[in-house]
């Protein structure tokens, strides 16, 4: 009976999160509270269980990176890079778009997607105005580059952070397995943009002077802070990469980096904490308790048993289904709760496969499906919603279908390309 009630509470909270009938934080906390009332979760489980409690590694990795971003964004380096690259492209709209897409993808691999688009969208609007190009194609291309670029690393997208924590996969594992396909997918995106937005790339030679008049060096407000921030960020990345040697969890590396940046920047607490999305952190906590309850009552275990017996040793088929289903579902529901729910199930599946490369590739199928599926619709990823808001505020509204008609094309092309990559890399030659 308890299992049924837990399942009902979970589905109810999930539906509320997906439909946004109430704020997602309230829905997740309500779901977590139901698990406590039903007696499945208690303080010992919620706070101290690694398997079914709040995953503090995820929470503190996110917190550390949010503080680091809060300091970095004040240096003006992103604005500098965007204007500098647009000037190198000599104001030719397609070349400018390629530059901005590449910058967005690289930044998104290191920062979360929402922060990346918040940084790149305003300067893109400025560049578009200077060169006389319509900004909507640029904004859509950037948010898609952000969703794809974030797939490349452990810290690029919250679903990847959850997968890393549940799977034990390292920063290097993510970079070695996902970065190559992300590079390919960014190239694919650029080709698609050329085809989808071809009417937006009219060159206006008379506007080049307006672009060249912008002084990107003025965007850098505090050069010593920029240098010190760069050194700390490089140190954090080294900490992630050198985990096999240092044996320090990514969450601690991020927190140490955040602490170092706060110390050298001498910013006030309210300034560097202003970019911490507390609601996101609380949302994660509620989700972990909800999913942990499903594990506690054995629902995830039974689903995993069914999935394992269905897959048997057909891991390629399993990864294919996981990639496609994740891609479709992430287009319509938030990919964070989806990945939080699927991770324990995939962990069991991979474990049943003895951790073989073919079985372990299910993690990459989950990550690619969840991250790339976010491009499919206007509500598929938080960054999409943020960009739609920025566009509307600046007098360039993008409707749901105005975004989705391009998003469906990009998702329909990138997910099959990712499938070919999985097939060739993990299954074709084994």
């Amino acid at each position: 009976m308890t299992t049924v009630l837990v399942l009902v509470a979970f589905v109810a909270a999930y539906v509320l999160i997906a439909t946004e009938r109430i704020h997602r934080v309230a829905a997740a906390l309500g779901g977590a509270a139901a698990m406590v009332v039903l007696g499945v979760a208690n303080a010992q489980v919620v706070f101290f269980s690694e398997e079914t409690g709040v995953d503090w590694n995820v929470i503190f990795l996110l917190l550390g990176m949010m503080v680091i971003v809060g300091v970095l964004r004040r240096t003006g380096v992103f604005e500098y890079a965007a204007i500098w690259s647009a000037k190198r492209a000599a104001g030719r709209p397609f070349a400018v778009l390629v530059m901005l897409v590449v910058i967005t993808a690289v930044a998104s691999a290191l920062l979360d997607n929402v922060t990346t688009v918040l940084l790149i969208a305003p300067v893109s609007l400025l560049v578009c105005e200077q060169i006389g190009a319509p900004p909507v194609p640029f904004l859509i291309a950037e948010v898609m580059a952000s969703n794809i670029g974030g797939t490349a690393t452990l810290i690029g997208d919250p679903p990847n952070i959850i997968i890393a924590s549940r799977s034990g996969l390292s920063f290097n594992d993510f970079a070695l397995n996902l970065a190559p396909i992300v590079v390919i997918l960014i190239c694919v995106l650029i080709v698609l943009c050329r085809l989808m937005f071809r009417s937006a790339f009219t060159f206006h030679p008379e506007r080049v002077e307006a672009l060249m008049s912008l002084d990107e060096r003025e965007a850098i407000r505090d050069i010593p802070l920029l240098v010190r921030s760069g050194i700390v960020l490089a140190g954090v990345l080294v900490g992630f990469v050198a985990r096999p040697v240092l044996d320090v969890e990514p969450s601690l590396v991020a927190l140490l980096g955040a602490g170092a940046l706060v110390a050298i920047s001498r910013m006030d607490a309210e300034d560097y904490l202003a970019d911490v999305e507390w609601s996101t952190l609380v949302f994660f906590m509620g989700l972990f308790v909800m999913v942990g309850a499903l594990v506690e009552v054995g629902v995830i275990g039974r689903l995993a048993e069914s999935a394992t017996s269905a897959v048997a040793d057909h891991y390629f088929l399993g990864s294919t289904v996981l990639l496609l289903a994740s891609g479709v579902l992430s287009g319509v529901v938030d990919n964070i709760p989806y990945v939080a729910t699927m991770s324990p199930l995939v962990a069991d599946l991979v474990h049943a496969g003895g951790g073989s490369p073919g079985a372990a590739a299910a993690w990459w199928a989950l990550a690619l499906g969840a991250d790339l599926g976010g491009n499919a619709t206007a509500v598929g990823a938080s960054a999409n919603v943020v960009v739609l808001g920025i566009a509307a505020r600046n007098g360039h509204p993008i409707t749901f279908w105005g975004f989705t008609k391009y998003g469906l094309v990009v998702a329909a092309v990138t997910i099959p390309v990712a499938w070919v990559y999985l097939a060739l890399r993990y299954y074709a030659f084994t």
Partner: protein
Amino acid sequence: MRAGDLAEPFPTVSLSTDGLTAARLIGEARLPGLIVCEDDGSPHTVLGGSQVLRFMIPQYVQDDPTLARVYDDAAAEELLGRLSTKSVRELLPRRQDRDDLPVVDRDATTVEIAAVMAQLHSPVVGVLDHGRVIGAVTVSRLFEHLFPDLPLTGEGHSS
């Protein structure tokens, strides 16, 4: 003292006045804003200087103030040019609540004037007589009346 006694002649503009003219009026007379009237002379609202600035400065620069630094003087002049193609009607916020007009009757007390300014965050309040604008009270005029004889001390001195 009542609003009618404090009121000073104040320029008004109509909804169809172009934005650049409104900005010049504010600048030349060093006003905090302008009273916007309907065609029949009744007050529509107050156009504050900051509202003109909000339209002059693109939203993306307001979102990311770092970008304000990258414009040179020529680009800044181009930004000013945005105003000439827009009317005062377009500079005003879209939602106008008729109950939120920063106006008082000519017999309003100084506290009533101050309350309207504080409530509506308006640096100027229009003064009406039978529904027609007869002038306005600025926040500086109000303070001048409220604190006429207080000696300036310390850092507040101007030379």
